[in-house]
């Protein structure tokens, strides 16, 4: 396995981009772009269309009924102040509107777009000359005729400026929608952030910025074209028709973007495979998905879900299976204190999941994503170290480096040194977690706490010391699947069974390293693994 010189992680941006852009970069960065862009456009277009369909009538109503106006604008204001990620999270468990994927994203975006649209409609209607309104009334127009023939056309420029704000807001907030599995350009940005891949981050952020700019300019042009008071060449009818055609074309393109993937999925009820938003999870999700496809089962990938969204989606029936860690399930989902014994923890989790969520927890996949106490491979070999206890005597001459998280949490640094009676020669250096790996490899520190499946353990020739006093809670990798899905799909049951105990820590490190270190596509890395394993 070619190792290459370790990449510098913290250089200038240009340098980092340069490094990231090496070897097959164009394909890595550009291949997902059209799809992400189409998803993004579709999210924004649908959210905007719904916001207009709802916001304009609301604005009209609010304008006619002053009492309603306070309520409507107030409510829209409140929605606007909810942080976007929180709004996505709040929507998830709701039936009909919520859930993982594009639907809740569109709803959330629509809610954000609502205020500018309502405001724009209100302000637009209020900008109509009262004399003109009175004339419409006195000439015998019905309420509807006044609205459609006089008030709305005259309100249009101001209304459109509201829609313009809404559109630009949507393009920006839609990047966050990736966190609820809605895809879009945000998926590239998140992926780039997680894997420290600046090129990928820019590949998502730059088109998003350009898209926002394009929407801004587009709406500006539309407002000018439709401004009833502006002189422009050509008869107004033709111009209006052109604007309508443009709008329809935009919406149609967006619809295609949204519906095409759905069409590709076909009609058979697909098994929805979920995965959290980091490399290892995406690899495991991809592995499950490919194995299912090899079994001939249709699959839907719902990857890169943030926080505990996977769990919520599974409980809500929106995904059928996803990889989880027993320690996470015990503490974050079930709210129990951390356990010590891996077998007991797994048993507790399996029992509770079956009882509370109707979900089955598989046996360990063969590795855990635990806190890993790491030293340089050289030191381990030279000193014959395999466990933390064995390393204790050397601590006095060592310097430790830890991420902020490890230093601050109770089951982190303090408990750790107490459990093993460690006394370091100098206070530990607190630094960015990903930096500790490099600091260790470079000899600046001598011991760190990392993640046991990090690809850099292998890439930088580090050695994990066994937690022989079982201080760290176990985070064994397992699969969580809905009982109903297992019963319905024998293929799913077979795949889950096959993966139990099938991947070692070392293998997982290797796979992670391929993606994070060498920037290869997860699907390709998984295919390679299947070939090697004969799956």
């Amino acid at each position, binding site marked *: 396995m070619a190792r290459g010189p370790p990449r510098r992680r913290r250089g200038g941006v240009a340098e980092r981009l340069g490094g990231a852009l090496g070897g097959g970069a164009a394909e890595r960065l550009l291949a997902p772009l059209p799809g992400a862009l189409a998803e993004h456009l579709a999210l924004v277009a649908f959210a905007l269309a719904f916001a207009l369909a709802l916001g304009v009538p609301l604005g009209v109503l609010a304008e006619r009924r002053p009492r309603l106006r306070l309520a409507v604008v107030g409510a829209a204001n409140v929605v606007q102040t909810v942080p976007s990620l929180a709004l996505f999270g709040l929507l998830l468990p709701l039936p009909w509107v919520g859930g993982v994927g594009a639907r809740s994203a569109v709803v959330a975006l629509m809610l954000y777009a609502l205020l500018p649209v309502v405001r724009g409609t209100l302000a637009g209607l209020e900008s109509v000359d009262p004399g003109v309104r009175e004339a419409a*009334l006195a000439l015998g127009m019905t309420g509807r005729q006044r609205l459609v023939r006089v008030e709305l056309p005259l309100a249009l420029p101001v209304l459109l400026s509201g829609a313009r704000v809404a559109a630009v807001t949507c393009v920006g907030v839609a990047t966050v929608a990736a966190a609820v599995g809605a895809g879009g350009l945000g998926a590239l940005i998140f992926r780039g952030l997680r894997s420290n891949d600046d090129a990928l981050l820019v590949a998502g952020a730059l088109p998003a910025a350009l898209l926002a700019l394009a929407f801004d300019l587009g709406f500006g042009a539309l407002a000018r074209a439709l401004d*009833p*008071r502006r002189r422009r060449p050509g008869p107004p009818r033709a111009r209006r028709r052109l604007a309508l055609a443009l709008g329809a074309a935009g919406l149609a393109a967006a619809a295609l973007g949204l519906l095409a993937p759905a069409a590709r999925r076909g009609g058979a009820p697909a098994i929805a495979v979920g995965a959290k938003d980091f490399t290892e999870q995406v690899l495991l999700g991809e592995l499950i998905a490919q194995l299912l496809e090899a079994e001939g089962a249709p699959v839907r990938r719902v990857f890169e879900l943030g926080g505990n969204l996977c769990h919520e989606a599974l409980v809500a029936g929106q995904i059928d299976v996803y990889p989880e860690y027993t320690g996470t399930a015990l503490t974050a989902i079930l709210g129990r204190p951390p356990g010590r014994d891996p077998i007991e923890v797994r048993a507790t989790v399996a029992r509770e999941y079956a009882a509370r969520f109707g979900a089955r927890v598989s046996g360990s996949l063969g590795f855990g994503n635990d806190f890993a106490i790491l030293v340089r491979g050289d030191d381990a070999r030279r000193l014959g170290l395999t466990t933390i206890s064995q390393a204790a005597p050397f601590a006095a001459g060592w310097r430790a480096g830890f991420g902020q998280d490890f230093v601050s949490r109770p089951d982190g640094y303090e408990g750790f040194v107490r459990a093993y009676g460690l006394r370091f020669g100098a206070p530990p250096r607190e630094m960015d977690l990903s930096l500790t790996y490099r600091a260790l490899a470079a000899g600046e520190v001598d011991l760190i706490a990392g993640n046991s499946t990090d690809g850099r353990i292998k890439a930088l020739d580090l050695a994990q010391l066994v937690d022989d006093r079982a201080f760290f809670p176990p985070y064994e990798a397992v699969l969580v699947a809905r009982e109903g899905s297992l019963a319905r799909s024998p293929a799913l049951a077979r795949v889950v069974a096959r993966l139990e105990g099938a991947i070692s820590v070392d293998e997982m490190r290797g796979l992670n390293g391929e993606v994070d270190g060498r920037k290869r596509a997860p699907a390709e890395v998984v295919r390679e693994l299947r070939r090697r394993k004969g799956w």
Partner: protein
Amino acid sequence: MAGAGGAPAGATTRRDDAGAGGRAGEDAAGRGRAGQDAAGPGRAGEDAAGPGRAGEGPVVRFRQVRYSAPGGRVILPRLSFDLGRGEALALLGESGCGKTTTLRLVNRLLVPESGEVLVEGRPTAVWDAIALRRRVGYVMQGFGLFPHRSVRDNVATVPSLEGWPRAAIDARVDELLALVKLPPGEFGARFPDELSGGQRQRVAVARALAARPPLVLLDEPFGALDPLTRAALRREFNALRRSLGLSALFVTHDVLEALEVGTHVGLMHEGELVLLATPEGFLASDHPRARAYLATLPSFGRGAAPAPFGAEAWGHGAGPPAPPEGRGG
């Protein structure tokens, strides 16, 4: 029905005359019922204006109409008058005297608190408001042209609301634009902000007349225009109205305008019609408010004869005569 309640044609302010029902208005002192004495005026042109419903009875009749503002302030305590067919009644008075309110009661932009307003014999409360408004032309203060519609489209508003065939609308718009002296080829495609004030006024008049209403309401139709344009437009409107046999109710605070355009002048003060007379009657009235208005006219102020400009405008005996510029349409 005209005879029914005696339609207190009395324009007097005395409440006790309410039930009296008599024709109070025979004396020239200005309590006269608008128009009967001037019966002739527009009859000839009535065909052009489209048939009013039944030639009998007044086009507009106010019967003891009381109206208060939403805040409760009484604007019209009790107003009664008739507007006969083909007549033009100029409501004269200072701001806030209730003239515009009176106008808005006619096409049911407002509804009387008590009493009733009859248009073509039917109370406005009984009329379908939309149908009523389409049957009554309205030229509002500031004209209220639709800024997003061309001149043609503005003029075509009511016919197109009424669902006229396209060709009929086009023909009617051409006819009207010619009538108000805006050649359709030159002005039809323009937008209101490309017109002068006088041209806008003409468009507003054309728009009000588009569906051949038998009655037009005009709220300060010549306001905010330069004096020369005002004078020209007044003359034109006069001629047009006579040739079409239109009935008109219009509001002004300019006594000269009232005398020149009205077949009758109604002087309003604090919601009451204190004087209703023909222009001659008005000139001869010794009502103090009428004298006060007349005093603002330069020649009257000095007690001189109204000759220099007066003769042409209102010197034609009873009722609107055939004026020189009135081409009998």
